[in-house]
């Protein structure tokens, strides 16, 4: 099990390291931007530059966003960041289908290795990868805030940043488990990743539309993204426990399905 886990971690290390470093770099860049705006006293000017309808759309959160803390927190919910980390979750989660596709799993399972250990190993790889990336983002934020931010700047609270990171990490974990469940029943990684990727996009759009269009709101609970609500956290709310429970529930459900599919399936290319 340990040998297989280490081998699998080696297989994903480059991808995880690259995504982690890019996202960590983004946190540093955002803190540099916030520092620059703060030093020039430009946050107040930015708010006045916004057209009235944009201000109406954003509501009271506009003040929260156009602040040092708001810019820094952007690194945890900007769509590019969300898709990068969910893309990583899907890439890592669907590796099991690739192992079936190339026949590597034949060699593993021809040894006295239980199938459930193969899935457990895939779960551990997903969880460790996400912990590493989110941990790297948090570390970059903390170090940059300590070393680059002006002393007088209104820095975001640790609770808020950790809450955002936790919510983002759990969202990615949920997609990781969905990807693993799909991949555990698939013979082709491309198919599994395609289904998971399109599902993520559809669910993201559903949540986005539901925030603007009331009729879609009734089914938005179906989307895992409905349980990722950074806006309320930026305006001061804490991470709702209900969201944590639902996202962990999705993750556990996906992992359970992955076990069920992989333990029963025929392994054939």
């Amino acid at each position, binding site marked *: 099990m340990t040998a297989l886990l280490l081998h699998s971690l080696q297989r994903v290390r480059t991808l995880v390291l690259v995504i982690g470093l890019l996202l960590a770099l983004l946190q540093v860049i955002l803190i540099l931007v916030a520092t620059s705006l703060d030093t020039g006293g430009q946050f107040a000017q930015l708010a006045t530059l916004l057209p009235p309808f944009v201000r109406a759309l954003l509501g009271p959160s506009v003040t929260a966003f156009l602040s040092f803390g708001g810019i820094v927190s952007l690194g945890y919910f900007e769509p590019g960041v969300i898709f990068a980390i969910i893309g990583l979750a899907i890439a890592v989660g669907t590796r099991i289908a690739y192992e079936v596709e190339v026949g590597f799993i034949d060699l*593993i399972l*021809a040894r*006295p290795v239980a199938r459930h250990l193969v899935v457990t190993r895939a779960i551990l790889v997903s969880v460790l990868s996400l912990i590493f990336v989110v941990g790297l983002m948090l570390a970059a934020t903390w170090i940059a805030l300590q070393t680059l931010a002006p002393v007088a700047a209104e820095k975001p609270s640790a609770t808020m940043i950790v809450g955002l990171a936790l919510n983002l990490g759990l969202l990615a974990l949920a997609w990781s488990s969905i990807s693993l469940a799909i991949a555990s029943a698939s013979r082709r990684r491309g198919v599994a990743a395609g289904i998971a990727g399109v599902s993520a996009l559809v669910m993201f759009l559903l949540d986005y539309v539901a925030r603007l269009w009331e009729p879609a709101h009734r089914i938005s609970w179906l989307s895992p993204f409905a349980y990722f609500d950074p806006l309320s956290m930026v305006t001061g709310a804490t991470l709702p426990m209900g969201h944590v429970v639902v996202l962990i529930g999705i993750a556990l459900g996906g992992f359970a399905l992955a076990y069920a599919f992989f333990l029963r399936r025929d392994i054939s290319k």
Partner: protein
Amino acid sequence: MTAIFLEGLTKQYGRLTAVAGLSLEVGEGEILGFLGLNGAGKTTTIRILLDLLRPTSGRAKIFGHDCQSDGLAARAMVGYLPSELGLYPDLTGRQVLDLMSKLGPRAVDAKYVGQLQERLSLPDRDLGRKLREYSSGMKRKLGIIQAFQADPPLLILDEPTEGLDPLMQEAFYQLLADVQRRGRTVFFSSHVLSEVERVCERVALLRQGELVLLSTVEECRRLAARTVRVTFQSNVPAPVGYEIVESGPRLWVLRVAGPLGPLLRDLAALPVEDLHVSEAKLEDAVRHFYSGDAQ
């Protein structure tokens, strides 16, 4: 002890029957050649033994351990060489061997691995290279080493000599003979009849998922039709009652199954100049099973 026990093994994919009611026993220390054309069900049977596929019905056991309900114990006895080695091209040969040795229950003897490397001409220098630089023959050698390295009691080999040059094939046959001398069992899938004839004691032949022949190689040869070439000093009439391969005024080439006595009696009255009987080959015995005209 029975190394492999199959009873009524059936695997269906919807309407397609890949293996149909296969029953077979392989004794410990035996080398059994598992023959059949592509799609006959050889690989499906092997994958059921390894619990990669689940049978629709029937049972498969390895050294008494059920391959499905006690699969870990069953697979602990096995070294497996797949027909295609599914490995990542950026791994080195050494990394592959290390990983596979760590996943098995038996300690790998570095000295034995060294001997395998030497016999198959895969030196340390090559093991340090990435698999993307390997030729198909080198990959095959690596596959053989990973299957043999823990010296398991049962070797399941799917088309093991595919891609090996004649020299390496010879080295591989020697290796098989050695492991058999040490009491190991080999379940050997192939469609190369000459090599099966050379290394196996018994053959099992599958056709469309069904076992159509299970016999010793010797018995197969004995039952096979021999080719008899007779030349005459003067013109003779065409033979009657024999399978004719070629016939001329002074030449008969016949295929004769079973005892040669009746033919010799017929020839006694004819001006025979020369008589040559070719030894029957396994190929002669199984050819008609492949073509589907045997019952």
